[in-house]
């Protein structure tokens, strides 16, 4: 195997393995998503029409919070046990290592959210098309959340502070993703805009956040290393 791919594959497999074994990763994220989404009807009341109308919004918000709040240990854990030191001493560029970790995080946290969405759609009184539309937009949009969240995760290493601070820093940055994600879902459900327009923008946002997220996170980690 190529001398660059082999280390990255090793890192990817390790992160996926850790997420599965520890159980703290993907599982907790989906559970949080589930609980937050199910809490909404309790708060809003059992008005099915209303729930159906704001269902996509609620699913997106839940996914947003679940993605960001599971991200805070992404680099912090590697920093605290010294792995980050060794990772930065290898020939593999830090940017690629970060992208690999992000991919593993998305696979173990983002993707389960997408898969859980159709089931949660039932609670929200969404029909098949609507659920599928939300799931599709989440499939396109959760990577953007992960990549934007990377910046916060890297900052929280530099700051030696995690948890809510990360969410507070990153949430305003995710507003565009949220807007176009919900807009695309609604476009597919009720119109009048064609689904394609906001969906294309959503995909473009994901690509932008991929680049910005990875480079900003690498910069933050390098700066934080002291």
């Amino acid at each position, binding site marked *: 195997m190529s001398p660059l791919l082999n280390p990255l594959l090793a890192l990817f497999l390790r992160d996926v393995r850790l997420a599965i074994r520890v159980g703290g990763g993907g599982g907790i994220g989906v559970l949080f998503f589930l609980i937050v989404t199910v809490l909404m009807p309790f708060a809003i009341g059992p008005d099915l029409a209303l729930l159906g109308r704001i269902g996509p919004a609620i699913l997106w918000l839940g996914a947003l919070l679940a993605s960001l709040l599971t991200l805070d240990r992404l680099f912090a854990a590697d920093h605290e046990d010294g792995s980050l030191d060794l990772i930065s001493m290898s020939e593999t560029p830090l940017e690629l290592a970060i992208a690999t970790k992000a991919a593993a995080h998305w696979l173990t946290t983002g993707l389960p959210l997408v898969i859980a969405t159709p089931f949660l759609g039932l609670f929200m009184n969404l029909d098949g098309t609507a659920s599928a539309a939300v799931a599709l937009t989440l499939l396109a949009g959760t990577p953007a959340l992960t990549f934007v969240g990377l910046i916060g995760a890297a900052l929280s290493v530099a700051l030696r502070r995690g948890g809510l601070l990360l969410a507070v820093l990153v949430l305003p*940055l995710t507003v565009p993703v949220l807007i*176009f994600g919900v807009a695309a879902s609604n476009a597919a459900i009720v119109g009048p805009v064609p689904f394609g327009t906001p969906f294309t923008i959503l995909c473009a946002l994901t690509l932008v956040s991929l680049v910005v997220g990875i480079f900003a996170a690498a910069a933050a980690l390098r700066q*934080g290393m002291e």
Partner: protein
Amino acid sequence: MALIDLANPTRFLSLARPTLPWLAGLTAAVFAVGLVLTHGAPDDYQQGATVKIMFIHVPSAWLGMFGWTLMSAAALGTLVWRHPLADVAAKAAAPIGAAFTFLCLVTGSLWGRPMWGTYWVWDARLTSVLLLFLMYLGVIALWRTVEDPSRAARAAAILTLVGAINLPIIKWSVDWWNTLHQPASVVKLGGPAIHPTILLPLMVMALAFTLLFLTLHLAAMRNEILRRRVRTLMLMQAQAAPGSGS
């Protein structure tokens, strides 16, 4: 702390000390002129005297945005040149920019009450200012939670630059968002081109606000430098004291 680190700020302090009173005086003078002109400006035939909110509202909106621009420039200084004064400038600008943004929000919603019948609508422009304000708060929280200023400076610089990229995206997405759901239900002023009797006082007030921003910023920078000196002295005291292992 190395002496080199203090060299630049020292020169800055010796410049700031004589400049500050003059700048403050100039600010007061321009404000006085501006207030007189504002008083002389005609009331709007539709809005009555409430139109005068504009003389505070518009300059503070501009300066709220100016604050982030300043922080972004300082962030480049921090990341690229590692200039200690850039850290200080960025840290000092954040609360001031946030204050002007807040002022814009408050005056805007006070104005909105008579104009639109409600304090707040989720209009595109208002919403992007609100997000700017929230991002200011995030940066301030970041500065406050981190003990070591140089560490905080670099983290805040990265966040500021990412925010600078994101702000236009927010603005544009919010435009799109709002027009999708609520096309043109929001009343906006603007209408006819602004009359010179209003434009002149507005410009003078904008100048006064800019001077106020600069005065506050200079003072805040001075305070921050002094605060860091106290911290350095404390650290040196700890190093010199018994049991420090030295």
